């Protein structure tokens, strides 16, 4: 959609003054003496009255509501400790999983090393992260593989209105889930997985190429030998 926000894109560095009038400080900004400044290196975006800085690098910053892929690092009788690639470990409690787990029976359901698709249900001021699996679509990831990319590249892998990700799925016949924390789960025929991994690496490396979607489609066509033109309605 071309709403009124078709401003010039601007790369800001920490400490840069944001001169827009009548906006509120959003993510990646800070306010000092009534003026708004950029706090992280990134691209300025304005949405619903807030200026945000879309970070172009850095670790995953956990946000409530994000769907992420975690790996279990520790289990005890009522919780699982989960690594989300964030600065802080996350806790999954037995009450937040879709099964009825007897006390001390946690290991039978999820064990150390398992990959799970979860939602961040809360991040408190002390940055304690609570996650939940008790929701439609959230589950333990039994098959396939998980790869990692920089969290800042996640929007590129998804693409405008999901264009990139649906293209990847259609060409490779794989099920793909991109967690907001930069972990990507891929499952499907082995050749498809291989191509998908290569394509995602290409997206990450060539993030700055103009017309990236077309370049990736070119690659997918060459690798899979498929011709798909039906998919334009998705855009």
């Amino acid at each position, binding site marked *: 959609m071309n709403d009124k926000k078709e401003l010039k*894109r*601007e*790369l800001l*560095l*920490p*400490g840069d003054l944001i001169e827009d009038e009548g906006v509120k400080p959003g993510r*990646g900004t*800070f306010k*000092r003496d009534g003026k708004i*400044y950029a*706090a*992280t*290196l*990134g*691209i300025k*975006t304005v*949405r619903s009255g807030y200026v945000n800085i*879309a*970070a*172009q*690098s*850095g*670790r995953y910053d956990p946000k409530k*509501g*994000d769907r992420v892929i975690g790996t279990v690092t520790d289990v005890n009788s009522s919780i699982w400790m989960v690594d989300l690639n964030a*600065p*802080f*470990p996350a806790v999954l409690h037995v009450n937040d999983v879709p099964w009825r787990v007897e006390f001390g029976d946690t290991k039978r359901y999820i064990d150390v090393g398992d990959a799970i698709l979860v939602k961040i249900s809360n991040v408190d001021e*002390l*940055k304690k992260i609570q996650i939940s699996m008790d929701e439609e679509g959230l589950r333990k990831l039994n098959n396939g593989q998980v790869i990692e990319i920089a969290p*800042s590249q*996640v*929007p*590129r892998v*998804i*693409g*405008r*209105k*999901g*264009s*990139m*990700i649906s293209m990847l799925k259609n060409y490779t016949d794989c099920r*793909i*889930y*991109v967690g*907001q924390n930069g972990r990507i789960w891929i499952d499907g025929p082995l050749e498809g997985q291989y191509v998908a991994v290569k394509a995602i690496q290409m997206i990450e490396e060539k*993030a*700055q*190429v*103009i*017309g*990236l*979607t077309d370049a990736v489609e070119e690659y997918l066509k060459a690798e899979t030998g498929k011709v798909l033109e039906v998919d334009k309605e998705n855009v």
Partner: protein
Amino acid sequence: MADEDVKLIDEKGIRLDGRRFDELRPISIEAGVLKRADGSAYLEWGENKVLAAVYGPREMHPRHAQNPSRAVVQARYNMAAFSVPDRKRPGPDRRSVEISKIMSEALEEIVFVEQFPRASIDVFVEVLEASAGTRCAALTAASVALADAGIPMSDIISSCAAGKIDGQIVLDLGKKEDNYGEADVPLGMVPSSGKITLLQMDGNLTLEEYKQVMELAMGACKKIYQLQRDALKRRYSTSLKNFEEMADDTEEV
């Protein structure tokens, strides 16, 4: 103390390496040179070569060193064994422990540490080649690496030294000038606000001389700030290009 034979400035006011009193050595900075670190920078400053890497914010170990209300910035300054003409004995020594400490304290001033309770932000600076002024070079590189790592901070720190040689106030002392000069004052500051985050002095200055030194060094910091910004902009200039092709928010699967 000075070796009387060494003349550091000639009659025309030209220094040993051909600079005038207010000239910096040539500086080049490149951001994002290391793939495995969260952020990095490589800096050449005259004959100094410095590499900085940033990791984090990440969970801090050992646990007892965690601060429950904010992140800890841990900088480590280290000189390579081959960084100086005579082999430097590897490992931390009195000097590098001191520099690590003052760098950590300087960087903590700009990082929004309250946003990451219990975490640590680790900054590693390796001096590959040293020729006077490495602590300024290290701090300058470290703050570029921090910005490259996407860490929230209020500004970028720039650093530069000034001092006194042969009775004259000069900027950015070289190796010989440092060894045979009368005073050396390394300064680290936030150029936009003028806030000083690092200040040391080796040697003696009168109050008047000190004021001149500060003015000279602060002016130079502003120039260095521009170089730091340019390095970061160069690194990320391409990020803007296909921004329109990206998903704009938390978009579905």
